[in-house]
């Protein structure tokens, strides 16, 4: 009570500052509102186009044609006239398998490099740092030839292997997380006679839920967005093996007329993929912040 009274004696100062804060707040609200709308506008346009079924109006040429009709026609077309359901299923399969492998590889590498001490540890980390600096596309052609020699091209197994094969290189963020777990936990367990396996499985992993969830979801999302490796590995002539990214990409880029013909259908498909991935990402964004701030960022 006393403090409040004391402040009131500086009434003038307080009043001046209060208006200033209010004006600043209003400006900030205005800016956030304008920018926020700008930010989602393209996505709104995507959904709007996905629901446009008016035929032959030159889809991108008019924003609101006089004979505008909205409905689920594009979605129906997507599921009946294209292989979209198969692409969706393919992508899910590939993402699930590569997610399992990637998660195991990444966490195993990160754990070994973070919690265990052995002779080759530092050299290994340096080599991996160097490997990570080569652009990924450089080795793409060679990867293709290696897969071809293994008789694996044009198969989903090849894609799974490609997505998860180099997973060890992405160990930084998880290692940063493991680094923060106190060593005393481990020492206590060793005194109780626990083996390294027990420590990993029973003690550290249960403590690392955020980073495990983060790794699982990011590695699951990865294959949904890739269209470079899919293009190299899967033949253009076998659409039943496409993933959603490649299928939708080819829907509007396969030839010149394809764009005007299929843009609304593309938007319908992109909307579905967008909703799936966005909802996953929203779940994981909390962990993303934790992962990035504990992994690559330190004070």
């Amino acid at each position: 009570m006393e403090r409040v009274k004391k402040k009131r004696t500086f009434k003038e100062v307080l009043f001046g500052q209060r208006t200033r804060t209010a004006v600043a707040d209003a400006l900030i609200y205005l800016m956030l509102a304008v920018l926020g709308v700008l930010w989602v506008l393209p996505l709104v346009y995507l959904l709007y186009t996905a629901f446009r079924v008016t035929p032959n109006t030159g889809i991108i040429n008019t924003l609101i044609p006089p004979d505008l009709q909205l409905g689920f026609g594009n979605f129906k077309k997507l599921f009946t006239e294209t292989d979209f359901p198969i692409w969706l299923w393919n992508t899910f399969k590939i993402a699930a398998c590569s997610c399992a492998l990637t998660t195991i590889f990444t966490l195993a590498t990160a754990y070994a490099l973070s919690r265990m001490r052995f002779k080759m540890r530092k050299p290994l980390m340096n080599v991996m740092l160097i490997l990570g600096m080569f652009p990924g596309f450089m080795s793409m052609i060679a990867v293709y030839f290696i897969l071809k020699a293994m008789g694996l091209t044009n198969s989903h197994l090849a894609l799974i292997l490609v997505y998860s094969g180099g997973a060890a290189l992405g160990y930084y963020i998880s290692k940063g997380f493991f680094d923060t777990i106190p060593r005393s936990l481990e020492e206590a367990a060793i005194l109780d006679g626990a083996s390294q396996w027990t420590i990993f499985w029973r003690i550290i992993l249960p403590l690392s839920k955020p980073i495990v969830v983060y790794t699982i979801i990011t590695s699951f999302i990865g294959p949904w967005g890739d269209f470079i490796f899919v293009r190299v590995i899967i033949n253009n002539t076998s659409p039943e093996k496409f993933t959603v990214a490649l299928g939708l990409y080819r829907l509007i880029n396969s030839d010149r007329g394809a764009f005007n013909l299929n843009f609304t259908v593309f938007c319908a498909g992109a909307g579905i993929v967008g909703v799936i991935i966005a909802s996953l990402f929203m779940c994981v964004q909390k962990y993303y912040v934790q992962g990035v701030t504990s992994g690559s960022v330190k004070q």
Partner: protein
Amino acid sequence: MDFVETPQEEQPLEQTEKRSFFSRLWKSVKGFFLRLWEKIKGLALTVWHGSLATKMSFCFMGVGQIMRKQFVKGFLYAAVEVLFILFMVFFGGSYVGKLLFSGHLGTQEETRWYDESLEQYVNKPGENSMLILLYGVVSLVVILLFVLAWAMNVKGSLANDKRLSDGKPLNNFLQDCALYLNGKFYVTLLLVPLIGLVVFTVMPLIFMILIAFTNYDYQHLPPSKLFDWVGFSNFGNLFSLAEGTGFAKVFLLILAWTLIWAFIATFSNYFLGMLLAKAINRKGIKLKKLWRTLFVLAIAVPQFVTLLLMSKILDGDGILNVILGKKGEIFWLSDTNLLSLLPRVVIIVVNMWIGIPYTILMCSGILMNIPTDMIEAAKLEGASSWQIFTQIELPYMLHVTGPYLITQFVGNINNFNIIWLLTGGGPGDNLHYGVGNSQSTDLLVTWLYRLTTDTNVQYNMASVIGIAVFVICAVVSLITYNKTKATKNEEDYQ
């Protein structure tokens, strides 16, 4: 408080590091080979004085273990050696021979003649340079792995010698396995991930780096044609000004754009994102979660969707021009005036759309952790909020997020998606037209990709450019990593 003082502390240390970098590199390389030689010598000597079992293991993997009744282990080792010998005899040997000792990548070109008895053209397939190089690299890696397994086998046998002379019993197979879940658990953890790394990253990289020293291009495409070693001439070509074939002019143009792009993209996203994060996290602003979600939605959707959509919106006939009433007049992504200035600016703006939300996400967490006592103190001293931002918050953020900035910069140098999906590297202009089919908004990586997928493929030059990208990233990281403390002190928090 500590972060303000650290840069001064680090100054002298960093200078000495810079001066001695190359000598340290040389020392470590020399040291590595010296140690390797010492090790081989030591191993040979101990084997010479070792037991019969060790000598047998030295000659043929696993024999010594079998003599000591470690049957499972012994037979596994022996099987490895048998498989290796079979591999070398029936497959790897000839490729390694050709790769290392012939000096060429195949000499027998495909021949084609008219066979009168069959009344058609007949092909006699020649050697395939690409397969010689690829399988040669694979075989060399297999040899290396075999040598490692063999050394492990000899070492194991020596350890057994020691145990026996100490009067201890030898491990049986189950005990050995248990060791890999405890003392040597890291081997179990790393084995499969590292195999994946070797097969899908290391071998392909060695292969591609070697291609930089060959003439593997559209005029030398296997299987009908051979390609061969050309030494450093591709690297010379990268810096050559020769009309029609020299890459120097185009390379420097694209390099300049790549660096300018990476710089602007990284810092525009960083500072604008930080300002927005500050605005959202300001005391008294309501609906924080809503604002954040609005921005984050743009990055939650996969990039191939958002960027393809953008490329269509920004098309000459696209919806943006329709709204502006300038249909077919403004070419946002294909205007070539002023060195294609408009597409470049548009790319940077679109990049803000999908880049700033990441900074918002990251900064929100950190901004809230800034020690408030400093800010309170500054306020008491009468500092304005702008001063507080530039003098306290910004240095703090820069210090804390240094590594993140480096990763972003390197990531932007390699930012394939945004260029490929928005402009496809285009528009083509007169400056870039010519060698390597480069276009005006190409980054080094998209140019590399085009060199390996266009009709006139030039794998050799693509590989040289890949190496150039590596050198740039390595230099950037080396300079900046040395300046940040965050990469060291990994045990600070344990």
